[in-house]
């Protein structure tokens, strides 16, 4: 790639758009929408070179590092970079934005200019958070995201919007303030220098410090994800937000939390990760089952989808905490899937809301007859959300569960797998009640099928649903090296902390020391063999388990149990 600061361009293009919008006349709605759409589309196009120029090596690319603030001992740098983990999240953001802007093309009629400015500022924050490698910069973007979203919910939302907006804001703020404290503490632990995450990766923190810092970071991210007991802001925010708000919230904002775990919480505090794994796994599983059960009895379509988000994100969290190649890759993929499918679901809910101004399931029924195209798209998206093989949902979910099953989270994984059943129950029941049955409500008799704009919004998503389901290789392959790095990083530190020889670090074996199903030989026997191996550091490579004779083979010689 040339020396073009692509990431900066990407981050600030929407900002330029927002500034341009400031100078637009207030009442020319068409031009305002057009400009906003154009800007977001250009941003998307500008993000394409990230894929083409991406070099799947695992390191950070497109790096920009400029000293920024030097206030006495504090140094913050404008440090951007991107790896396989953030690549697709950036693309997802730039991809979802034009769709989100199109989605409320006609629904938002008031303060259009301000609305579009908010959306574009939101995009700045989102892209910025994904590319920032300086923790301080990350924090700034993290907060930048919050404000436009607050306004989007609070100004253009539904009836109960103020409550929802304030709840969203305060919930998130509580977490991020704790994160700020931990971030500063981390900085002091690291000694003089800048806030670069790369520098923090090298730290060896004692377990107690790790615990506290992890808790602070984890809380901030857990609220954003959201994980089980901290999830109640989500249904409210989703229900009250305008369609574009819901779409962005679901597709990108929630990913900030999980991304935070992958990028910060786990590699920075691996011991704490190991320590809190059972807790997080339990919360994730509770989240999956609980949210599914609650989703089942919802009467409001949008709320149902919101709760389904909680369940889906529970899967993502499980995958990430499995901390092996499949789990993390599955989790990452599931993030993208959730962005696509749930984003699409919110768009769909938006479509019928625009037509009927209600989201109550009981107000519908039999729409399939009146709106066949809508029904087809809705169905595809529903099945993607359920995780039907061939659609995107399956690949992610499968890898997550497989990864979790291979780690020491096995018991949790088994319960989580039951989420597969529950998701089918609530989604299909909702689909049935909305789309099937008699077209009894007279208000539904004259519903129009999707118009060209709406179909144009949905087609890319539907195509993506199938592409990611049938050929997920490009996604997985680009992520793999970065994920390997991340895992190796975390495991190496865990191993150091536990005095386990590096040879035992094998992502496939899950957390070291966790007993596999019927692995007859104790881990201790494997250890000397591993130490004897000449290339101990390379054994940390997650691929070590596949072809040759890696240390894990030691138990293979043991007799079978019958």
């Amino acid at each position: 790639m040339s020396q073009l600061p692509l990431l900066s361009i990407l981050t600030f293009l929407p900002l330029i758009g927002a500034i341009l919008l400031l100078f637009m006349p207030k009442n020319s709605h068409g031009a305002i929408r057009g400009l906003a759409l154009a800007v977001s589309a250009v941003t998307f196009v500008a993000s394409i070179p990230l894929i083409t120029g991406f070099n799947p090596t695992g390191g950070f690319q497109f790096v920009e590092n400029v000293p920024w603030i030097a206030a006495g001992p504090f140094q913050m740098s404008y440090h951007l970079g991107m790896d396989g983990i953030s690549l697709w999240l950036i693309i997802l953001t730039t991809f979802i934005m034009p769709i989100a802007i199109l989605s409320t093309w006609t629904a938002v009629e008031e303060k259009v200019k301000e609305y579009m400015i908010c959306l574009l500022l939101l995009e700045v924050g989102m892209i910025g958070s994904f590319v920032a490698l300086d923790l301080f910069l990350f924090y700034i973007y993290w907060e930048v995201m919050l404000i436009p979203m607050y306004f989007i919910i609070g100004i253009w939302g539904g009836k109960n919007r103020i409550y929802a907006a304030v709840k969203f804001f305060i919930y998130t703020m509580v977490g991020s303030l704790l994160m700020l404290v931990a971030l500063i503490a981390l900085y002091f632990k690291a000694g003089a220098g800048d806030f670069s995450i790369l520098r923090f990766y090298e730290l060896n923190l004692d377990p107690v410090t790790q615990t506290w810092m992890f808790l602070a970071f984890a809380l901030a991210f857990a609220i954003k994800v959201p994980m089980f007991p901290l999830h109640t802001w989500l249904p409210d925010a989703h229900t009250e937000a305008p369609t574009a708000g819901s779409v962005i919230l679901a597709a990108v904002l929630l990913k900030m939390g999980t991304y935070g775990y992958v990028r910060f919480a786990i590699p920075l505090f691996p011991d704490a990760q190991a320590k809190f794994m059972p807790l997080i796994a339990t919360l994730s599983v509770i989240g999956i089952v609980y949210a599914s059960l609650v989703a089942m009895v919802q009467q409001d379509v949008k709320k149902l989808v919101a709760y389904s988000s909680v369940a889906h994100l529970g899967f993502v969290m499980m995958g990430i905490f499995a901390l092996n190649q499949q789990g993390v890759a599955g989790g990452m993929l599931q993030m993208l899937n959730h962005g696509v499918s749930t984003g699409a679901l919110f768009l769909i809910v938006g479509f019928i809301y625009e037509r009927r101004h209600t989201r109550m399931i009981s107000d519908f029924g039999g729409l399939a007859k009146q709106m066949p195209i809508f029904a087809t798209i809705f169905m595809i998206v529903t099945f993607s959300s359920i995780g039907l093989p061939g659609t995107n949902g399956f690949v992610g979910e499968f890898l997550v569960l497989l990864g979790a099953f291979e780690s020491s989270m096995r018991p949790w994984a088994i319960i989580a797998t039951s989420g597969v059943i529950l998701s089918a129950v609530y989604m299909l029941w909702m689909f049935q009640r909305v789309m099937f049955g008699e077209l009894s409500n007279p208000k539904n008799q004259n519903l129009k099928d999707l118009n060209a704009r709406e179909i144009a919004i949905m087609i890319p998503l539907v195509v993506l649903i199938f592409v990611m389901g049938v050929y997920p290789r490009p996604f997985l392959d680009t992520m793999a090296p970065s994920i390997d790095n991340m895992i190796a990083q975390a495991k190496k530190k865990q191993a150091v902390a536990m005095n386990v020889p590096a040879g035992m670090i094998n992502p496939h074996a899950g957390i070291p020391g966790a007993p596999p199903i019927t692995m007859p030989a104790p881990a201790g026997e494997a250890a000397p063999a591993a130490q004897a191996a000449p290339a101990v550091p390379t054994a940390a490579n997650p691929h070590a388990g596949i072809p040759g004779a890696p240390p894990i083979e030691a138990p293979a010689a043991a007799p079978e149990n019958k």
Partner: protein
Amino acid sequence: MFEYVWLIPLFPLIGVVINGLFGKKIKNEAVIGGIATLAVVGSFVVACGILFQLLSLPGEERHFVKTVFTWIQCGPFKADMAFLIDPLSALMLMVVTGVGSLIHLYSIGYMHGEEGFYRYFTYLNLFTFSMLLLVSGANMLVMFIGWEGVGLCSYLLIGYYFHKKSAGDAGKKAFVMNRVGDFGFLLGLFTLFYYMGVNHNVWTVDFTELAKHADLIPVGGVTTVVCLCFFLGATGKSAQIPLYTWLPDAMEGPTPVSALIHAATMVTAGVYMITRMNYVYIKSPTALLVVACVGAATALFAATIGTAQNDIKRVLAYSTVSQLGYMFLALGCGAFGAGVFHLMTHAFFKACLFLGSGSVIHAMHHALHAEHSSADPQDMRNMGGLRKKMPITFLTFLIATIAIAGIPGFAGFFSKDEILWQAYANPFHGPVNFVLWAVGATAAGLTAFYMFRLVFMTFFGETRLSEKAWHHLHESPIVITLPLMVLAALSALGGWIGVPKVLGEALGGLPNMYEHYMEPVLAYSTEYMHTAGLHGLHSEAAEWGLMGVSVLIACCGIAVAAALYVVKPTIPAAFTSTFPALHRAVYNKWYVDEIYDFLFVNPCKALGQFLWKGFDVVVVDGIVNGVAAVFRGFSGILRHVQTGFVHNYAYSMVLGVVVIVACYLFR
């Protein structure tokens, strides 16, 4: 030809795309139906080519994997989009495409004039596509696409008349039940994959790879867990206890769908899957016992319900459940070949039966429509004497019924007899063998009874239709009867490829072609049983004896049916009034649906309600809003400090300064 195996699923997929995207524009039923049917016929032709090529190879070379592209690769996990050709998959391909094409053809006639004609054929093609993926997938993941895909299509097709609530419910039920099975499938897959990977460094979900390393699969222990998990998957898909309840409800779909999905193909997926993994199952006697017991129990249980149903399709549905139970009984006895053999013959005669019932319903529907009657065209109590008006349907139906009843010479006899013999003679279950056989034989008798009850009530006796309706009753058109005839011929003759050894020798050395054909697939299991010293009973006398008994039981069943429904039609009513509770229980399917509702569905809903209203809103949001309320309360008190008078602010400011300075001064 092997290289082109990917064409087999591709053709129906093309059909899906064409009909799905443009079907609404095409409008012409002949074109839509033609495209869909041609797609399946195309697959059938390719499948034939593959079968012939396969047959031309020596046994041990009958194995081919065609990898199209790598689907998922992540760490050690790798799943290719790959197709496997071996005798088993070739047979299944033939059955699916063969029966599938006939049903497509039939559907053109049956679905004539339906709203959403194109939708129907899109779904049907999609179903065929999924089923073909299922049976030709070279690894568990590709199989799982098909596995879930058929579940999806069955959801769509059962819910085809979506404006009916019952149809939507049935579709949902089918999908969810299947999902419960999928849960098991996934767990089994995870366990097997992980166990083999961690302990033997065989990270694979590929059938060929697994078979190659079959020696590493331990006996019992983990294998039992794996097998039971997979079996849960199979019970979901193949409608076994405890997950069978969706299948009878699935009769809400159009009749050809019932024939295709719920008789010939989809429900056999479980049988196929277990056979595909026979080298795993053979290692776990416990799992085999469970499979056999569940199979036998289902066979008997469903048969009892079948005896009391009046809806023609429901009888057939329970019969399907029961016959699937037979197949699992065979699998559980380690007779994988016999299970698949019954699968094949069952596909022929059950498809024939369903299509025949479709023909009857079609005719009844028109007849009743003509007199504007709202009577149920599927209720056998409205039929009777139809053989006069619908001779072809009657004849084909009768042949299929004889086949399912197990009358010697017809397809069902050979397969069912083989299963019963294996149940008796297998080396796995010791004393339980006799029980299994006895249950199987009883179920066979019941099968003969309720099937002939169906035939007698429908085709014999005097009609219970009104004059006008009777007048409007006609034999179905040729697109409907042609598939019937083909299937009837297959039900009559299809069994002769697998003649039991004793019978073959008695008849002058007829070979058991089927057994020979399946050998490569089951090679490992056979060898394993051999080395492990597991030998079944060998006694020609016993075999002859059992054969005789089973034929006798079948004949008894027919005789009882004839006695009750032709000779003395008053007896059933008398019986019903004597044992009303029993009849009610059987008629209401032993209240299993109600029990499930009580045990799972309602508690789940109640729990959901509680968690939402009780926990989410009250506890979690209560805490959140409570914190806010506490702050608000405090500020409510504190706000009184803000009097709004400038002086007060000035005072407090100066006071503040004084205090601060004082702190500094007097510390």
